[in-house]
């Protein structure tokens, strides 16, 4: 098998049809995984010994929070690649990912508030975890506004890339906030270093939902990057 020339796909011209071919598969996978994941979440996973049924929001909350951080890292990765290699597609990918990341950040904050009221007794507290996640939402909104405010698309990409890279420092702060400081938010139930601190069926439901969110994010980013290519380089999209 011949080696794939990855740089070929860094041009919008060749990425446009590839994205179009891949998008439906990711969308279908995301639909399938969410149906199975939600079924496990609502009908298979047991009731929690402390929180009863209200813990079930974990199946949306945790995958959304994971995605909010991971999409930011990927977005910053594309932004950095755009600055280094000066490729047009990188900036487009960063801008295609940002709205999905912002949506998941909002979802994590919102479901967290809904969960916090019955368990902690409050919708919101200014602890390090909640505050740093709110800053992440502002970073996404800042990136979206900044890139939208600059008329010249290539300059907008570069300005956004600098903002995205600077904001990367917030990601480890969110992730380790519960370790570094006293917070109301509990520590991680699932981490690479120790065995998961939850029942297996609960964990499976959560991982299925996380996978579904992954697939959805990829599908949404591919769809959006195709619109951006069509808008900015109509010829790259038309010649196929």
């Amino acid at each position, binding site marked *: 098998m011949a080696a794939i020339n990855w740089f070929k796909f860094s041009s919008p011209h060749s990425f446009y049809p590839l994205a179009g071919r891949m998008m439906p598969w990711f969308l279908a996978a995301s639909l399938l995984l969410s149906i199975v994941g939600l079924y496990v979440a609502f009908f298979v996973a*047991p009731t929690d*010994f402390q929180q009863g049924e209200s813990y079930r929001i*974990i199946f949306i909350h945790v995958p959304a929070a994971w995605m909010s951080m991971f999409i930011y890292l990927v977005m910053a990765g594309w932004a950095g690649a755009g600055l280094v290699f000066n490729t047009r597609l990188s900036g487009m990918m960063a801008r295609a990912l940002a709205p999905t990341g912002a949506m998941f950040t909002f979802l994590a904050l919102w479901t967290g508030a809904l969960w916090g009221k019955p*368990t*902690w007794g409050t919708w919101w507290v200014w602890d390090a975890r909640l505050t740093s996640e709110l800053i992440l939402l502002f970073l996404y909104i800042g990136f979206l506004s900044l890139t939208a405010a600059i008329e010249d698309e290539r300059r907008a990409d570069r300005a956004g890339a600098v903002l995205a*890279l*600077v904001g990367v*420092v917030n990601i480890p702060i969110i992730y380790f906030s519960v370790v570094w400081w006293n917070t109301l938010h509990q520590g991680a139930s699932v981490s690479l270093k120790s065995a998961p601190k939850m029942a297996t069926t609960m964990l499976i439901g959560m991982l299925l939902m996380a996978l579904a969110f992954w697939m959805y994010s990829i599908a949404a980013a591919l769809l959006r990057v195709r619109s951006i290519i069509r808008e900015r380089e109509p010829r790259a999209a038309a010649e196929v």
Partner: protein
Amino acid sequence: MKPRHKRFIAIAAALLALGGAVALVLNAFQSNLVFFFSPSQIASKEAPVGRSFRLGGLVQNGSVAREKDGVTVRFAVTDTAHTIQVVYRGILPDLFSEGKGVVAQGKLEPDGVFRAEQVLAKHDENYMPPEAAAALEKAHGGKKQ
């Protein structure tokens, strides 16, 4: 060196410098980022005096007592080394119970009693079905956690 290598090094250096600066700032603000103080920290006079702050720890077993008016609750918050008495008027969250985590906001009175204005339950990161929790308790020889 190709221009893109130069750009890469410049960006990496800038990010490193930024990361270092943020680490220093966070280190300097360490004490202000603390959401709550433990009874031991209060015992060693680290908590602010005369101003509202949060106290966090476990509700001591057998310490919860309700007064006759029905809304005033007294309990003790412990971190196993030190214990602080708390008095609170209001509704407790559902997950509030003896032996579980709690964060109370309020002031330390001169007599050493913490007068709470708000009590929040802090739950842990363990999720399991009730049967598993009961089995665990049994395995621990029936002793209360």
